């Protein structure tokens, strides 16, 4: 007898509605000329037109993406190498790596940004460069997401035995790691990287403290345009959301294509 699956469907539908409401409300609001007590006063495409002709918007989105990439790369390389070393050579070290990687969870970006600025601003080192500062701070603040994603994936594929199997077949440990383990972890790396991307992409506090108005990302653009009408801000939010969605879908498509 086929069991009825009504309950899961109801839960899933309600959750989807709950998650979509803010998005739909923002989208709808971006098309309105104003709002009466209950319904929109009228509809317009004016703000969307403004957004697409706004000369600062697209460079701001591009800046957001560009500033996200180096921290994600740095963080992934560091975490993968650390976990590889601990899993293959020193399994007892893993708990310490975990503890270290989780620290940024309790030290929010602002708390890291202010001391970094006080410590390095104006010094004759490379760290006084605001872009370097930003990259370094982001690298630390995304550490928990990247670590957790990669760790879960690494433990799901029985690395030790895969490496041993490859070793018996004549491969070196590092070669086996690059050729077998790393590709098998790709989905975990991508998921945690996307999570990190959305965190960096959505940051306002750190960039405001470190770069001020010198490096205008979309969040900064939103902040600077706070005096502008709300509908315009809604358009920017929808564009940001869509940009993140497009990037993540492109990455997953690429991954699935590689898998065959």
């Amino acid at each position, binding site marked *: 007898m086929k069991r009825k699956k009504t309950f899961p469907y109801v839960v899933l539908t309600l959750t989807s509605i709950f998650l979509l409401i803010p998005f739909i409300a923002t989208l709808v609001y971006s098309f309105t000329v104003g709002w009466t007590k209950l319904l929109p006063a009228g509809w317009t495409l004016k703000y969307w037109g403004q957004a697409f002709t706004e000369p600062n918007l697209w460079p701001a989105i591009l800046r957001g993406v560009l500033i996200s990439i180096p921290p994600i790369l740095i963080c992934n390389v560091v975490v993968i190498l650390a976990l590889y070393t601990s899993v293959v050579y020193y399994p007892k070290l893993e708990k310490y790596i975990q503890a270290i990687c989780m620290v940024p969870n309790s030290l929010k970006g602002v708390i890291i940004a202010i001391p970094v600025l006080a410590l390095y601003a104006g010094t004759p080192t490379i760290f006084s460069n605001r872009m370097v500062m930003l990259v370094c701070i982001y690298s630390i603040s995304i550490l928990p997401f990247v670590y957790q994603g990669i760790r879960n994936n690494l433990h799901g*594929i*029985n690395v030790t*035995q*895969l490496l*041993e*199997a*490859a*070793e*018996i*077949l*004549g*491969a070196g440990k590092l070669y086996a790691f690059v050729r*077998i383990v790393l*590709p*098998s972890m*790709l989905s975990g790396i991508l998921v945690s990287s996307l999570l990190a991307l959305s965190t960096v992409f959505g940051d306002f506090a750190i960039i405001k403290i470190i770069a001020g108005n010198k490096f205008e990302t979309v969040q900064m653009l939103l902040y600077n345009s706070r005096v502008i009408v709300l509908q315009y801000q809604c358009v920017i939010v929808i564009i940001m959301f869509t940009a993140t969605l497009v990037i993540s879908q492109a990455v997953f498509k690429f991954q699935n294509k590689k*898998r*065959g």
Partner: protein
Amino acid sequence: MSYIEFKNIHKRFGDAHVLKGINLNIEQGEFVTLLGPSGCGKSTLLRCFSGLETVSEGEIYLDGVNITNFTPKQRKIGMVFQQYSLFPNMTVRQNVAFGLQIQKKEKSLIEEKVKEVLDIVGLSEKIDQYPRQLSGGQQQRVALARAIVMEPKVLLLDEPLSAIDALLRRNLQIEIRRIQQKLKITAIFVTHDQEEAMVMSDTIHLFNVGQIEQSGSPEEIYAYPKTKFAANFIGHYNILDTAAMKKVVTVDTGSEFVAIRPEAIRISPDDGGSGGQDVRMKGKITGAMSRGTTVAYTVNCGGLEVNADVLFSPNGRMGIGEEVYLQIPKKDILELR
């Protein structure tokens, strides 16, 4: 000199002394099983042979060469693991070809050999599938193909069938044995399943707490266990305390325990008369369990519980509480160390 020689192998993990002076010889083309319960050291010995573990003491020889300090790659062996360990990002073809590619063999030769071994394991049609698209049994056959394509000097099998269901397992036991005999490859097989060991092996080495308890052919190990542990582990032997047995019947033995196979005991409702070659005991049936072709009786002989397996007969079934006579050939009463 044997093809493989383990000489006084010791292995310690911190304070744990896992292998305690193993001496073992294996001949070329032999299918040898290391049998024993979990934690007895059988897999550790296999891993020491493969080079995945180092030995704490002792030497290992393969084909006359001391390989004790060789890397796994230098040993030229093949290994099949319990959890298949197929590379998940590679197709069957790529998995099987992996070792040959490392050896930088010609592409055409790799293709030819891959197809040949996949044909041997009967998976030619799965060549372009990924491990996740295969069943457990198919994955294990790919793992076997990946190992034998390298033409290893020795094939190591570390509990390769323990993650597979019973029916498939029986088929794979036969399959592995067939391939081993066809390729005349020396194989060391690790298992904790005595039936599996009996079906597959030329020689069984029974392990217990880091030492070899008994070695021999499957028939020898089954019919003549030498120790209480061997009798317990190998079959459903009756292991009887000699002192308790002597209270019931006269037996001529100096050992503390004796073992009797349940199927060696004859059971009948009346005393069949005395025979000099048999030991006879009177008892009462306390349990009867049908196992299809046999019936397993438990008989209490003056406080001594004895199990006897009798061929099933529709009219000859005896009931619980019935008084019976047990007849045990003296040659089937085995003295244990």
